[in-house]
């Protein structure tokens, strides 16, 4: 494993909106088969950095991303030849669950047929497998044609996870995926993330330090300087939580600031 390249390696990445940097100089490394937490106060560009990893912010007017990003040892452009392929292999889950205003079945089918073509049997198989992998199959098996918006918040978020997992991503980006959910539903999602890390690399942006402590294998700590975010410290979760090097990390993890 020592020689395998990290799932994500960034060098000097910056994201700017209308020329104003949100984060800059981000050099980070996220190993495969691990939960990599990004923590820090709000407004320090964690989400902007996260969306740069699958170029989701390139359609935002005025947004510019600089620097190098490598996925599994290959430059972003070589890793995925086009945007569709990149988004399929580097999936993103948002803070608020976003089920499309369609049936549960359509929510699953639309992305599957988009990427794997129209094959009734294969689509149904992928749909079932993905819903099973998030523990939703038993709950919705008999009402796949029900509007997805009628599911509870936690179920909606698991549906969104299933929708992304059906496309077999290798990296899963999560932007505070449980902050809009009640503790029970959040616990279920956390459980899922722990299971998923045997198959892929997860990057989890979270405000919730307790959650990071529960889940993270590595921690990247963002802080603000001169009006934009930067990485104050990063490393294995144990090290950061127990023996942080920087004063600002020590203060933040002790709850004195942020």
């Amino acid at each position, binding site marked *: 494993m020592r020689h395998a390249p990290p799932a994500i390696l960034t060098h000097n990445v910056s994201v700017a909106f209308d020329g104003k940097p949100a984060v800059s100089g981000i050099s980070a490394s996220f190993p495969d088969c691990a939960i990599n937490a990004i923590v820090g106060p709000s407004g320090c560009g964690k989400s902007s950095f996260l969306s740069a990893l699958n170029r989701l912010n390139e359609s935002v007017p005025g947004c510019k991303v600089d620097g190098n990003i490598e996925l599994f040892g290959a430059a972003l452009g070589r890793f995925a030849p086009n945007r569709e392929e990149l988004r399929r292999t580097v999936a993103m889950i948002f803070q608020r669950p976003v089920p499309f205003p369609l049936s549960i079945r359509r929510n699953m089918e639309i992305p599957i047929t*988009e990427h794997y073509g129209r094959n009734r049997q294969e689509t149904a198989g992928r749909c079932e497998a993905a819903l099973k992998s998030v523990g939703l199959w038993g709950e919705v098996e008999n009402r796949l044609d029900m509007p997805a918006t009628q599911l509870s918040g936690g179920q909606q978020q698991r549906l969104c996870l299933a929708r992304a997992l059906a496309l077999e991503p290798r990296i899963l980006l999560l932007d505070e995926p449980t902050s809009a959910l009640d503790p029970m539903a959040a616990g279920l999602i956390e459980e899922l993330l722990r299971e998923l890390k045997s198959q892929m690399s997860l990057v989890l942006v979270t405000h919730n330090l307790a959650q990071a402590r529960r889940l993270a294998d590595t921690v990247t700590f963002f802080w603000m300087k001169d009006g934009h975010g930067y990485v104050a410290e990063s490393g294995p979760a144990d090290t950061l939580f127990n023996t942080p090097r920087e004063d600002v990390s020590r203060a933040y993890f002790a709850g004195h600031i942020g």
Partner: protein
Amino acid sequence: MTGVETQNRLAALAIWSAGLLILGAFTLIVGDIFWRGFSGFELGFLTEDPADAGRAGGIRSVLAATALILLVCLAVTLPIGLLTGIFLADYTAGGGRFAPLVRRSLDTLAGVPSIVFGLFGNAVFAHLLGLRISILTGGLTLAIMVLPFFIRSAEESLRSLPVSFSQAAEALGLSRLTFYGKIALPAALPGLMAGLVLGLGRALAETAALIFTSGYVTRLPESLLDSGRTLSIHILDLALNVPGGAENAYRTALVLIVLLFAINGALMALTRLSPSYREYR
């Protein structure tokens, strides 16, 4: 009673009277047309062609011409309207400085009197493009008239969708075509239908733009290049130029109103059938 209470009561009275006035006017107009239109109405009115300049006979050919003109209008309005609406509403389309220009042009077009559209249609479609005074010319002219309204309402209903839908679709690697075809347009259906109803209503009511473009003969049209007379023009002609045509004018008005209600109801029913409508409310 205190002064504030008196004021409140007066205000409530004024507001209620205004509402009642509108309701009264509506009832009076529709009631009058139904009352007069129904007297002596027979089903044969729908299946016979007009005779004696419209005093006798029915409106079969007029109905046919109206339907054809509406179809031409729809066939042009729907695709162009949806595409332009998407262009204006989509933040990724990169409309940039071009989009405001389009919007301004549409707003200007929406304020142009219909007679001007009639002259334009006559000059461009009928003569320049050689389509003559025909159902095709009339339908195209109506389409240009209806488009500004339909495009703006399409834009509005697409814009009212949460941005997160578009983001989530992008995050799943869906093409924009898939996003609009399978997610956004179905979700925006109620608004799109409302826009379509308004547009079709305008088209059905139109006379000035059609006199120079689709003409006013009462013959049954045999092709899109024949001229033909719509319900509204038939009413205008009977009321204005044909002594003794008032009865059939009222009957035609009745058909027109029922047709409007029917189109309205059908489109709304169609909207309610779509799953997005139930979920999105």
